């Protein structure tokens, strides 16, 4: 009973805070409530925030899977996304393959990288302290970033494909690529959910995330499953990369702008909780969008990170996590 109460309270507080952040700055600045409520650009940035949430949700999906199943934090996850983006760029713009062929190749590349990360690094550290695993992937972050700088240079690349935008109303324009990101992200969450609940491999993955030792006794090959999970996680990074190349320029340090927020989403959602991660992505994206609309894009990020730190103290197990 008590648990439900806290959740309801949190929901009310969250909704109030959201409304306050959305309308109060304008009301204070303009002193006009009607104007604040009918501000078209406010709603535009809210919708854009919603669509950004789709991208963030997709970004955190693979990391969340690995997080939840193997209990490892891949600090280098966003760098794998970056490598996937380079893969797509090279196969599309340099080797001249059509985009719809280059994208699956990009996904295959990141899946292979994910497999490699587990096979070559994590497997050797599976029994050491979690923090060592985190630091080892921190080493990979440096490596991927610098390898990309060495191989591709520090110039910004763009695949030169834009899906354009369409008008929702007279004043509000929606970018197709963001809408696509949003839909594909929702689709990917659904597919992953079905995979985890309906297939044998998915059930085994869920079981092993609950108890490593017992599942090994039940005859499940832990190592093979972990490798499979890592490859899927890597592939999801590639999928996120496919959508990011449509919206952003590619450069070796792009991972740094997405990396931190991706981890925060996973932790805020409750480790390995897909639905929680999905919701957390939208909370963050709205904070960033509203903060960016009223103040400055960076303030949006500051709000998001401060919110994360505060939430860690209130609900360390994540918004949808179970208390252990």
């Amino acid at each position, binding site marked *: 009973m008590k648990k439900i109460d806290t959740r309801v309270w949190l929901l009310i507080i969250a909704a109030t805070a959201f409304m306050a952040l959305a309308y109060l700055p304008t009301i204070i600045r303009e002193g006009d409530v009607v104007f604040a409520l009918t501000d078209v650009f406010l709603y535009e940035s809210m919708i854009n925030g919603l669509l950004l949430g789709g991208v963030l949700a997709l970004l955190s999906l693979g990391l969340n899977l690995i997080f939840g199943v193997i209990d490892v*934090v891949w*600090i280098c996850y966003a760098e794998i996304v970056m490598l996937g983006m380079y893969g797509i760029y090279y196969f599309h713009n340099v080797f001249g393959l059509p985009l719809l062929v280059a994208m699956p190749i990009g996904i295959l590349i990141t899946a292979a990288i994910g497999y490699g990360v587990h096979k070559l*690094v994590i497997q*050797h*550290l599976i029994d*050491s*302290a*979690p*923090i*060592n*695993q*985190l*630091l*080892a992937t*921190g*080493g*990979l*972050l*440096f*490596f*991927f*970033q*610098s*390898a*990309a*700088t*060495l191989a591709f240079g*520090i110039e910004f690349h763009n695949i030169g494909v834009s899906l354009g935008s369409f008008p929702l109303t007279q004043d509000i324009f929606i970018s197709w690529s963001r809408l696509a990101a949003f839909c594909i992200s929702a689709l990917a969450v659904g597919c992953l959910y079905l995979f985890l609940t309906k297939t044998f491999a998915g059930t085994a993955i869920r079981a092993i995330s609950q108890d490593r030792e017992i599942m090994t006794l039940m005859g499940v090959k832990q190592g093979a499953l972990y490798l499979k999970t890592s490859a899927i996680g890597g592939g999801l990074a590639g999928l996120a990369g496919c959508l990011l190349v449509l919206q952003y320029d590619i450069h*070796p340090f792009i991972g*740094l702008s997405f*990396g*931190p927020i991706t*981890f*925060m989403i996973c*932790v805020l959602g409750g480790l390995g909780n897909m639905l929680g991660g999905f919701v957390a992505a939208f909370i963050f994206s709205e904070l960033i969008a509203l903060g960016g609309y009223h*103040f*400055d894009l*960076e*303030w949006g*990020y*500051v709000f998001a*990170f*401060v919110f*994360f*730190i505060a939430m*860690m*103290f209130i609900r*360390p197990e994540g918004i949808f996590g179970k208390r252990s």
Partner: protein
Amino acid sequence: MNSLTLPVALAGILVVVSLIGVPPYPLHIMIVIMIWSFTYTGWSLMGRFGLVSLGHGAFMGMGAYVTALLWNYGGLTPWLGIPIALCAAALLAVIVGYPCFKFKITGHYFALVTLALTEVVRQTVIATRDHTGGSLGFTPTPKGNDGASSLMSLQFDDKETYFLIAVGVWLVGLMIWRMIDRSMMRYALEAIGEDEDSAAAAGINVTREKLKITVLSAVMTAFGGIMYLQYQLFISPDTVGGIGISLQIVFAVVAGGIYTQLGPTFGAVVTLLLAEILRVYIGTDAVGLDNAIYGIALVLFIIFLPRGLLGSLEARLFGRT
């Protein structure tokens, strides 16, 4: 090996050498190594007890930016600015550390919360670009402009002065390390690192012990940032803060040896020399090669040499476990 004899002897030799005369370039490298060694030592105070913080970029940035902003806009001499900046860093450490330790946020959760802190500070610096210069960086006003003396502005014309200060600060850092190493606090923190609940049951105030070491470590790191500021006279969110610096700190300490007194120093020497050698001999064609080597080395160290270079050497020489 963990006594102060070796560091003092080393410092003595370095000071004598610098007085005889060292060309500016090697002297510059030595100063940078000393400053970073101090910062790394500060981080290792926490890191050796399993409190892996990725938030030290935040403390470093806090120290450097508060000092620089007070000097530029308030005209406040670093003699006063530094204590204020250190207090600010300590306050930040308490604000984040206290709830963390109270609510038992440990392991990689702690690392991620502190990582968020790093980002908060970095983004705040960028967001207040009207005053801090944002990503373009920030330069403290040279002393000449308002006629302040070297001593007031703590900006010196010759590298020798900086070197002597850096060596002194580095020695103090090692003394603090040794003080902690010989204190009851160390045993308390080691017990906490093994098992928090048992440690609490044994009568250790877990939150307070952790908070003490965190504040100490944060203040040292902030001071390292201030040293960097006063020497380089240029700071930017990426040179004194951000996830890059946080990871750089962790890497150098892990490479050198997290459990030994001179490990962080050794890590600083190895990593900074590697970067310089690659830069000088390979040049700009290989931008990023040093980081690529670091990255792979870090992974290999964690898998094969978790005690670090110096730590493993010591274990082999003296059979310490």
